[in-house]
């Protein structure tokens, strides 16, 4: 709850290197993610989320942790989130706030709420890579 309300990283960048907008057609949640890169390292990030508590909270964790990360680390964390949700694996190392989502394991229909901001971030990184 506190993570969701903090909305860490909410906003927009003046000149993003990569940008992505994705939504979940089943629940209407949508995430717009913008990143600036130096090589493959994220130097700045901003997101605008319209969604449920879980979606907003996951975006806040990204806002707090993703700046300074390499794109491989984002891929590792993103895969780790899926493993945590689906197989009750421990939360991925380094981003300890993600442990808050461990109880979501029991609610299969909500997995995508947590994953949506990660999918948006990966899409934004891909968009930046294509430039």
């Amino acid at each position, binding site marked *: 709850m506190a993570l969701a309300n903090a909305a860490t990283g909410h906003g927009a960048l003046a000149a993003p290197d990569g940008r992505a907008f994705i*939504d979940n*057609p*089943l*629940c*209407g949640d*949508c995430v717009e993610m913008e990143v600036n890169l130096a090589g493959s390292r994220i130097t700045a990030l901003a997101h605008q989320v*319209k*969604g*449920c508590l879980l979606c907003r909270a996951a975006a806040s964790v990204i806002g707090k942790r993703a700046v300074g990360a390499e794109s491989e680390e984002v891929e590792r964390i993103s895969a780790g989130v899926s493993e945590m949700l689906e197989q009750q694996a421990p939360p991925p190392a380094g981003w300890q706030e993600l442990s808050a989502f461990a109880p979501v394991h029991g609610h299969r229909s909500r997995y995508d709420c947590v994953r949506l901001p990660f999918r948006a971030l990966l899409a934004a990184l891909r968009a930046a890579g294509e430039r």
Partner: protein
Amino acid sequence: MKWALYERLRAATAAGTSCAVVTRIADGAQAFFDGERWEGAIDLAAAQRAAVRGMLVAGRSGMLPGEQDLFVRSYARAPRLIVVGAAHISQFLAPMATLAGFEVIVIDPRRAFASAERFPGVTLVTEWPDEALARLKLDATSAVVTLTHDPKLDDPALIAALQSPVFYIGALGSTRTHAKRVARLTEAGLGDKAARIHAPVGLDLGGRAPYEIAVSILSEVIQVRYRGEAA
């Protein structure tokens, strides 16, 4: 008609906002009402203003009831029914309301529900309700009904509707659901306005099927349109 007032009337009708002009027969002085604000040369009492609003909502023109000297000309567009939530009830409500003379708009960002296959011939909007309603410019001849069953989508729509001059606001959900909703709206600073919401939505016709609830909602919207909130 004074030029300034004519310009206001022209701008409002061009923007698709229903509005009314009141003329005092004795001296030709006029007042303009766009559903929210009054301007012009006549100062009307609160009861007279409420009566003019009632005529505008109903799309009626004529002498203001009980007055010898005040003529009301309504420039009302077709009433709009804005349905938030592309749910089962909406699938029946949208065509019924269209047949009953309403311009119907269904808003739902859940694209899986708001699909053209489910709503043939209906104007669908897949933006979030707060963005969609800001763009649609809610006016005095608009009604808003929320049917999503999800506060994440219903609440932004209700917040926008409560800050607008729409003639009807209805929200699906039991008395208990509505009590929680009012608590959230009070937290958002709209506690004094929340009484405008009709909840549980619709007239109590006894029916439970989606098409019966659609009839009860449409009936209540029409009743409030012509009889006002006191009915």
